[in-house]
C-alpha cells in the first residue's frame, strides 16, 4: 500500500512541509471557515432579514454541506502525488473568491428575491452561491493534512485527531473573535483582508513546492552523476 512506499521516501505524497507547518495551515483554514460563517450571517441579514432560524440555519447548513463535500474532495486529492501543489491552488482559489465576493453579493441576493424565492429558499440558495465554493475549498485542507502527517497506518488516527483538534480550536477562535469584534468593522474589508491572507498562504505553499521540487531534482541528478562516476571508477 501507499504507507509502505511512502515510508521508503520518508514523506507522504508530495509533502514537503514540516508537521508544525501542516498543522498551522489547518488552523488558519479552520479560523477562516468560522470567520466566514459568522460574516455570512451578517452579509445575508440585510437581504433576508434577521429571522434567527432562517438566515442562520441557511448559512450553517450550507457550510456543513460544503465542508463535507470539501472533506471528500480533499481525501481524494490527498492520494495524488502533487497534492501540495493542488492544496496551494485550492487556497488561492478560495482567497480569490473571497476578494471577488463583495462585488456579486448584491446581485445574487436581490436576484434570489426577483426570481421569486422566499426568505428561506432565497437565503439558502444565496448562501450556496456565495459561500459554497470557498468553504468546499477550505474543507479540502484537513484530510490532506492528515495524509501528509501520516507515515504509518498505526499513526493515522492520532494524526487525524491532532489536525481536527487544532483546526477546531482555531475555528472556535475565529468564531468568537469575529462575532465579538470583527463584526464591528466593515464586513467588506474584513472579507477582502481574509481573501488576501488566503491568497498569500496559497502562494507561499506553491512557492515552497516549487523550490523543494527543484532541490529534489538537482539532488537526484547529483546522485545519478555520482553513481555514474563510481561505475566509471570501477
Amino acid at each position: 500500500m501507499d504507507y509502505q512506499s511512502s515510508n521508503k521516501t520518508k514523506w507522504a505524497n508530495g509533502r514537503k512541509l514540516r508537521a508544525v507547518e501542516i498543522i498551522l495551515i489547518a488552523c488558519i483554514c479552520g479560523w477562516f471557515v468560522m470567520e466566514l460563517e459568522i460574516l455570512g450571517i451578517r452579509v445575508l441579514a440585510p437581504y433576508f432579514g434577521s429571522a434567527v432560524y432562517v438566515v442562520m440555519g441557511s448559512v450553517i447548513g450550507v457550510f456543513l454541506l460544503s465542508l463535507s463535500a470539501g472533506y471528500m474532495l480533499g481525501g481524494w486529492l490527498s492520494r495524488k502525488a502533487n497534492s501540495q501543489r493542488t492544496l496551494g491552488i485550492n487556497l488561492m482559489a478560495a482567497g480569490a473568491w473571497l476578494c471577488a465576493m463583495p462585488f456579486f453579493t448584491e446581485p445574487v441576493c436581490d436576484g434570489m428575491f426577483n426570481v421569486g424565492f422566499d426568505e428561506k429558499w432565497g437565503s439558502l440558495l444565496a448562501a450556496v452561491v456565495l459561500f459554497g465554493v470557498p468553504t468546499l475549498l477550505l474543507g479540502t485542507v484537513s484530510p490532506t493534512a492528515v495524509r501528509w502527517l501520516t507515515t504509518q497506518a498505526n499513526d493515522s488516527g492520532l494524526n487525524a485527531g491532532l489536525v481536527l483538534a487544532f483546526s477546531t480550536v482555531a475555528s472556535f477562535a475565529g468564531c468568537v473573535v469575529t462575532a465579538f469584534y470583527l463584526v464591528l468593522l466593515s464586513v467588506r474589508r474584513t472579507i477582502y483582508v481574509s481573501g488576501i491572507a488566503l491568497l498569500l498562504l496559497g502562494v507561499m505553499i506553491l512557492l515552497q513546492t516549487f523550490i523543494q521540487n527543484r532541490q529534489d531534482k538537482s539532488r537526484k541528478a547529483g546522485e545519478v552523476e555520482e553513481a555514474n562516476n563510481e561505475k566509471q571508477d570501477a
Partner: protein
Amino acid sequence: MKNRMRKVILTLVFCITAFWQLSSVSAASVPGLGQLIHQKNSLYHRIFVYKSGSVVSLKFDKRSAVQMQSQVNLSNLPEQKLEYTKLTFCGLLYKAQPQKMLVLGLGGGVIPREMHYYFPALDIDVAEIDPEIPPIAKQFFGFRDDDKLRVHISDGRVFIKQQLRRDPVTKYDIIILDAFNGEYIPFHLMTKEFLEELKGVLAEDGVVIANVFYDNRLFDAELKTFLTVFGRCQVFLGANSGNAMLAAPGPTAPMLTFKEAVDRASVLQRQHGFAFDMPTVARRLRPDILPDQRVKVLTDDRAPVNWLRTQKKRKLP
C-alpha cells in the same frame, strides 16, 4: 469515601434549595410592575407580562434596568402610560390626514391600536418578526386586528422589500420604526440602505418616525444616517424617558418651526380630542439638534450598532 459522598449530596441539596429560592423570588411580584402573570420564551425574546391592578406591562427581559416594551391600563385604554407612544403621534404634525400607515414592531400594540382608535379610516400595516407577540398583545393588552389594522409576521426589512416588488408600490403617509426597543438592536433596520428602501414606500408628503434612545452615540449615528438619506430630520426629545423621535419628512412634507408644531398640535387636539395633550408632544421638538460629526453613517457594510449603543454620551442634547 463516605465523607465525600456526604459533601456532594450536601452541595447538591444546597444548590437545589438555592435555585428553588431564587426562582420563587423572581416569580413573585416586582415593585411597580406587579405580579408576573404570563411568561413565554420565543425565538427572539423572553416575554414577561406583569399585572398590577388594571395595569399590564410587557418586558422582554427580567432585569429592572431593561426598558418596558408596553404598558396598558385595561380600565382606561386610551391612557398611554409610556411617553414614547405619545411621542410617535408627532408624525401627525407633518401629515395631519394620513391614509396609510406602516408600523415596524408590535410589542403590546399600543401605537397601532391608538392610531386606529383616533383614525378609524386609516389603513394600518404592522410588521412584527416574532409570531408569539400578536397573541400576547391580543390576550393581555387589549389589542385587536381587523381589515383596517393588519399584522404581518415578517422581518421589517423583508416586508419592505416585498412591498417594493409590488405593482403599484403602496405608499405610506406615516412610517413608524419601533423595532429596536429591546437589549439587542437589529442593525439591518438602521442602515443607509434600509432607509433608502424605506424611502421607496414613503409618500412624497409622508414622514418617517423612528423611536430611538438619545443617551448614547448610536443616536448620533442614526441621526446622521437619516440626514444623509432624507436630507432633513427633526428630533422630538422625550421629557422623562430616554426616548427620542427622529422625524424625517418626505420631499414635499414641511419642516416645522417650534411655533408651527405647537399650532398644528392645538388644531389636531381640537379635531380628535386625544386623551393625552398633543401640544405637549409638539413642545418636545428640538429643531436645532445636529449629530456628533465624529460618528459614521451606518451602512449594511459597517453598522456597529450594539457597540455604539453602549457608548454613553457625556453631554446630552
